[in-house]
């Protein structure tokens, strides 16, 4: 336990033990934190039901128990160990549940979406090839580029990959990315620019090693810029793995 959070641990333990005064304080101080966090996750209110359910568990009502007063309470707060502030722990638990629900929905719901996206990207690739008969190498260039990019990413230090993922995949802002990695947003920005440069140089080197001339390398990069829509590398990556 971090000594900075001793008061939070004390409050959590008293709440878990059923101290009504402690619970009153918890409700006054931390309930708004929980619901603000839910709104931050989904401004349209889609995470509020998760916050409701979490709030019930923090009190000690389990799912499926209809009469809260008759059931024996078992508060979730007993798992709080004080490695962080109570507010941050609540946010992390809420975030965990939110992300897991989204992932579960994605697994259950439309595999069709993914298939559609795959089909769409294959269609766009075919269309690109159809529209540009003058450059029959485009598909090969894209595959080579995607392949090289994948290897370049794998060679980056983990923290650089994480920074890139936070920014490009999770779509955090520079300030949020910097906050996670404990650096100033300008530092995050510089590191991102450096990583992009390192990746580009690595990709260029790999393309040269694959026997491409400078003008062909330029055509490789141009083929991505010319593509008006987002480029889906999944089918390309799949092909390259086969």
């Amino acid at each position, binding site marked *: 336990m*971090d000594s900075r959070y001793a008061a939070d641990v004390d409050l959590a333990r008293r709440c878990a033990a059923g101290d009504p005064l402690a619970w009153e304080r918890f409700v006054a101080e931390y309930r708004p934190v929980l619901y*603000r966090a839910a709104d*931050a996750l989904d401004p349209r209110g889609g995470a509020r039901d998760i916050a409701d359910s979490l709030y019930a568990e923090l009190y000690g009502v389990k799912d499926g128990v209809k009469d809260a007063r008759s059931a024996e309470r078992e508060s979730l707060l007993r*798992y709080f*160990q004080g*490695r*962080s502030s109570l507010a*941050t*722990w609540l*946010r*992390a*638990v809420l*975030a*965990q549940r*939110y*992300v897991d629900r*989204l992932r579960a929905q994605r697994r259950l719901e439309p595999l069709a979406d993914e298939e559609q996206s795959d089909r769409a990207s294959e269609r766009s690739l075919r269309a690109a090839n159809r529209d540009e008969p003058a450059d029959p190498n485009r598909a090969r260039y894209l595959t080579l*580029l*995607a392949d090289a990019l*994948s290897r370049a*990413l794998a060679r980056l230090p*983990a923290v650089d*990959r*994480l920074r*890139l*993922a*936070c920014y*490009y*995949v*999770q*779509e*955090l*802002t*520079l*300030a*949020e990315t910097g*906050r*996670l*990695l*404990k650096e100033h*947003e*300008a530092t995050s*920005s*510089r590191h*991102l*620019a450096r990583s*992009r*440069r390192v990746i*580009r140089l690595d*990709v*260029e080197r790999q393309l040269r090693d694959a026997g491409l001339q400078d003008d062909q390398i*330029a055509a490789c*990069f*141009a083929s*991505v*810029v010319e593509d008006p829509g*987002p*480029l889906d*590398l*999944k089918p390309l990556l799949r092909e390259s793995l086969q």
Partner: protein
Amino acid sequence: MKHADNERDTSIERMLARALRAQTSARATGDCLDAETIAAWVDDALPARERAAAQAHVADCERCQALVAAAIKTMPAPVARSPWRLSFMGWLVPLTVAAAAIAIWINVNTRRSAESRAQATAPKVAAASPQQDVALPSATAQPSISPGSPESPAPAAPQAQAPATARNKTTAHDFSDALAKREPAPPVTTPPAAPTESRAAAESAPAPAASPAPPLAETVGVAGGIAGGQRDAASKPPQGTASKAVDKMAPRAMMQGFASQEPVMIVSPDSAHRWRLLDSRGSVQHSSDGGASWETQLMGANVSAGSSPSSSICWLVGRGGVVLLSTDGRAWTRIQFPEQIDLTSIRATDDRSATVTTRDGRTFSTSDRGVSWTPQ
């Protein structure tokens, strides 16, 4: 060469999201982080070794990436206060107190010496009209309020001495005349913001004619920016209230457009980082020291307005749907815009979200760094 590198960086950028996603799905290994560990990480309470291990795992685990990203998004935004401002504010109170103490000491000392000199050289004045003793402090106090620099106490001493030495040579009658002549001037009620103008107005022209020209010239650029950054906006009368409106609308993002031949200045919230758009040469310059030195970044850029929500982020817009973004204050990336129309102003909140206004008054917003634009 540099241009080609930038284009290739853009290509890499366009492919990164999906390539990274494919990587994380394929490479995820080890145990996922629990909420306790994520919370400790966010609160910067993880030991260095544990944090490095967590980073290594999250770099390749899609679920944990989503978890930490969601946790970070739920954290309240820190209050943006620059260290310079904090240190300055820390010194401001004692400095003000010290300056006030010095000013009072000088004023009192000067008055005492003036009074003692007056009493020594003109005892008749003091003896003949006792009520003028009451008037004396106000006479000596007047010059210290009425000069052009009311904030600086130093000039108060010589100016306070001037009437005192004059008094030494006057008779009681002359002195009361001098007081009577001073009475119409209302030094105490003079607004301290523009003491020179109000005095000039009182002396030479009727009050409405004395409009303070220099401050208005400064607001033209800002007002032009709000109106859309067009040159024809400069012909309209500048409105001070409009610049206040910008401050209220976008406290974090300073936004300006072209006005006359003045370069458009885009100032970041910390005020040290700023960009200026030079209309005549069509170039963009950057300063990281509050405008003391400038470095040219882009030449011939067709940009006319910009917005900087933080010290390293700047958005620029211009003719033909040009949108440029810099996230490190130096390198610029072209952001795609759906229409080839002139963009006249922009308001950005971070490196992903911005709202632009087109020449025909429509507004478009993006929250994904220009991947998609939504008409408002």
